[in-house]
């Protein structure tokens, strides 16, 4: 078991998050921004699970469970938004 595997994975996934940020910044439509928020949700869950193993802190799995359970709340709130919520000034 290579010792730097888990932290390496965490760094890799966090870089993924940073890349996803580009889409949130650039995404023309609100839906794009919301989809990248979805990406953040699942990536954070993965990072938390790896942290739980790496730092041997079982509570992190509960945090991951919370995140994955509540991920749908934001999307449902977004669904109720009016159509042109962020359309006014969407130029990148």
């Amino acid at each position, binding site marked *: 078991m290579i010792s730097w595997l888990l932290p390496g994975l965490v760094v890799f996934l966090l870089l993924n998050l940073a890349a996803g940020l580009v889409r949130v*910044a650039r995404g023309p439509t609100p839906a794009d921004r919301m989809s990248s928020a979805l990406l953040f949700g699942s990536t954070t869950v993965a990072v938390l699970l790896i942290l739980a193993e790496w730092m041997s802190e079982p509570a992190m799995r509960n945090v991951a469970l*919370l995140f994955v359970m509540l991920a749908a709340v934001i999307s449902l709130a977004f669904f109720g938004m009016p159509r042109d919520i962020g359309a006014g000034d969407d130029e990148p």
Partner: protein
Amino acid sequence: MNLAVDSLIGLGLVALAWQAISGRSLFRGIVMFVVFGLTMALAWARMGAPDLALAEAAIGAGVTGALMLVALRRLVQLHPDQPAEPKRARSRLALPIALLAASLVAVIGLGAVSVDREPGRAGVAVMDNLAETGLSNPITGVLLVFRNLDTLLEVAVLLAAFLAALAVFRDQEQAPAPPRGDLPLVGALLAIIVPLTILVSVHLLLAGSHEPGGAFQAGAVLAAGGVLLILAGRLQPASGMPLATALPLVLGLLVFSVIGLAMMLTGAPLLALPGLWAVYLIEAAMMISIALTLVLLFAGASGLRRERP
């Protein structure tokens, strides 16, 4: 390797914070702020504070994000034609003041961190006296046994915030627009997630005595279940404050105060809890109060009524 992870999380926090306050579209700001909350949970995890990561996740993902999105929707619905974003305040002083504040905090923080002093005397005292409380999670010990006046007054702060918001909720009780025609998927989502939030919140409540968890995190998770029901249109805001809503709203404060005062009759000091059963009873009552207060704050109303689809 630790440093690489921490610096990435720190970089993410700073970038997200900057994006949340600058940038043009308010909606983008909210998304950035929600993601900032997610990353804060990671930061707490890395700093070895699982209780705070749990609280940040429960309150951040469950309540705050949806609260801000619904607030933005109310803003756009009230004046659809108006640009949501008034122009930025022109202030040349902003940057120097901000840099000054940042450097002041940096100097203080580094000063506090660099000299390695022995840990706080109160923290050591908590660890020494924790055994007699029957709890093994020191944070729950501090919150509910050693400094329980803080917790009681803080539930009062939450009630005060709700009553203050109640004073402001006038005729904006129009329901958050339920999706037209009940979507099959949302029904399935509710059927699975809502009972799960109840299960997880009870688990967090009971686990609070020996591992990270407690009344606040449990209350916030329960509130997230209520938020889901409102978003899906199953619960509608209602005016008026029936007893069925008012009692659970103040239950936490009532139970905590009554037990705290009753103990004085038996000669014990104020708020000295008789035993572990009292701690669990108070935590359960507080969980219900916190959950209902957060849900009502989200619904923007003083009551809720069921809505058969």
